[in-house]
């Protein structure tokens, strides 16, 4: 059974990898990858999506961290509500979200955000913040729990600190690892996202992959493998960060 399970996961991957190397008739080569990297659209769309991912991470953190902190410390009765809201993006398909945006922010609306590129970028980031909310929330909530944010807050308060100071100087540095974990997940999601980006007609990486997939044969396979590698690097970094965090070392003593 484990063998069957592993093959189910690995065989398509191996097949794709093999295919991505078979552009030349005479044998294996990295030509498909070379074409991908030399395509200016690849660089620009990847760069665009990476930037959008970074913005999503910052906005998501700024939004989620104070909220979760407040709910944990002051409004624990709100927790079930927040947990439910945060799960919604996993239940409601993103296409519903983006159609909502298109209706609310169309060029004939009071906030014609879809009319300009910058406006559409903002909508895209909003959409991604929503989409990745479950990951950001879970990561930050776990982080706050692990450091006993309540007691640390009380310790800092009695020493004279105000909430904003505590959040920035005490809480944030100690849950950085958790935020990073949420950030890498967010990055992985944003880099591959297609629906929202294409409906908002943004030059993002997801639609680019899709376009290449329609037009070419070997390059899409190379792109798929690259996406996999990017995701794995993100996951590996999460593991690495967790391993080297001081909190973990303390727990191991």
């Amino acid at each position: 059974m484990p063998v069957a399970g592993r093959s189910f996961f690995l065989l398509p991957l191996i097949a794709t990898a093999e295919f991505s190397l078979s552009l030349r008739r005479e044998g294996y080569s990295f030509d498909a990858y070379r074409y991908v990297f030399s395509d200016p659209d690849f660089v620009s769309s990847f760069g665009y999506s990476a930037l959008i991912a970074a913005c999503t991470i910052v906005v998501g953190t700024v939004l989620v961290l104070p909220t979760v902190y407040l709910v944990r410390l002051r409004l624990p009765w709100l927790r079930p509500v927040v947990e439910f809201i945060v799960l919604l993006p996993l239940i409601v398909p993103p296409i519903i979200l983006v159609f909502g945006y298109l209706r609310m922010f169309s060029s004939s609306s009071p906030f014609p955000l879809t009319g300009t590129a910058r406006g559409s970028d903002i909508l895209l980031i909003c959409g991604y913040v929503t989409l990745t909310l479950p990951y950001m929330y879970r990561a930050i909530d776990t982080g706050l729990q692990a450091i006993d944010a309540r007691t640390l807050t009380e310790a800092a308060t009695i020493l004279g600190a105000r909430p904003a100071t505590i959040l920035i100087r005490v809480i944030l540095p100690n849950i950085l690892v958790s935020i990073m974990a949420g950030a890498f997940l967010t990055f992985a999601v944003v880099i591959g996202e297609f629906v929202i980006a294409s409906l908002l007609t943004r030059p993002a990486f997801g639609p680019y992959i899709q376009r290449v997939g329609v037009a070419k044969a070997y390059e899409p396979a190379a792109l798929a493998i690259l996406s996999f590698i990017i995701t794995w690097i993100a996951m590996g970094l999460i593991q690495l960060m967790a391993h080297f965090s001081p909190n973990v070392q303390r727990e191991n003593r």
Partner: protein
Amino acid sequence: MNLIDPAVRAGVTLHLSQITKRFGRHEVVSDLDLEVRKGEFISVLGPSGCGKTTALRMIAGFEHPTTGRILIDGRDVSRLRPDQRNLGMVFQSYALFPNMSVAANVGFGLKIAAMADRNIQRRVAEMLELVGLTGLERRFPYELSGGQQQRVALARALATKPAMLLLDEPLSALDAKIRLSLREQIRDVQTELGITTLFVTHDQEEALSMSDRVAVMNSGRVEQFGTPLEIYNRPTTRFVASFVGTLSILKARLLDPARGVVEVATATFKNLEIPRGVARGGHLSLAVRPEAIRFGVYKGDVILRGKVIGVGFYGSVIRVRLIVGNETITIDTFNTPLSSPPLRGEDVDISIDPKSVFVMRAE
């Protein structure tokens, strides 16, 4: 017009006046009155769940009393936020900031108060010397033992020269041996600085050994507030008597209320202080401390005979349990080179000094 509260003139640092705290319908602290004098080391002692932490958190400002007032140095702080009260607090879990070095932890309060860096450095060095951690400035909390972490927490709490120091079971998370040495160290530091201190604990030995006075709490109320000696030797309630120290309780019958004559098993006690409202022939409980009973027959004492059912060796003390009539009595006797403790199953005579017996209403 009297500008200065008479209590402050008498040197009172903390004054709790009629404090009550309810969570919903659950009354956790009831009618708490407490006056702590400047420089005193006060323990709040009570079983888990009796409201000690809640009381401390109200003083700190993390909870608000449902009714009542809290005065610190004569100033009503009931409406102030915790960060405005100028208090130092030490937590059971140390609560050091994991991202900061020892020096940064100790200096945190000073930095918040916008003290100049050089002065912070000097004060931090001073505090670390006080708690015996000089040289560990650059370490991080995870590089320290539990005892060291708690000493850093103590230094951090004292660095800002608070009006009062609050400690909530600061030793409970530590090993027995470190607990003992830290107990003395905390008291030494407190004496050196002369800082008014409120120490919450469920450990009676801790409370009795460290404190100037002890407030014994039960179900949200202070049952007795007095010196450790008073608490131990003259408990005023049944709860205090049984919670503080070990106590053997014997069933007794009142023979003569006027002259305090009480019958226990085969013996009679005379001249005891009888609680009011118990009639001749009524039931009473006699409570005796383990160290108030001796083996053998002594003149002037009340003599009982019992069978040994257990002998426990505690180093300098030997604790013997025996059955007298239907009841178990615990006796502590010093372990001296000359003594030979009784053996299990042996029948022995014991002598009880009537002056060390407390009489309580039967339950």
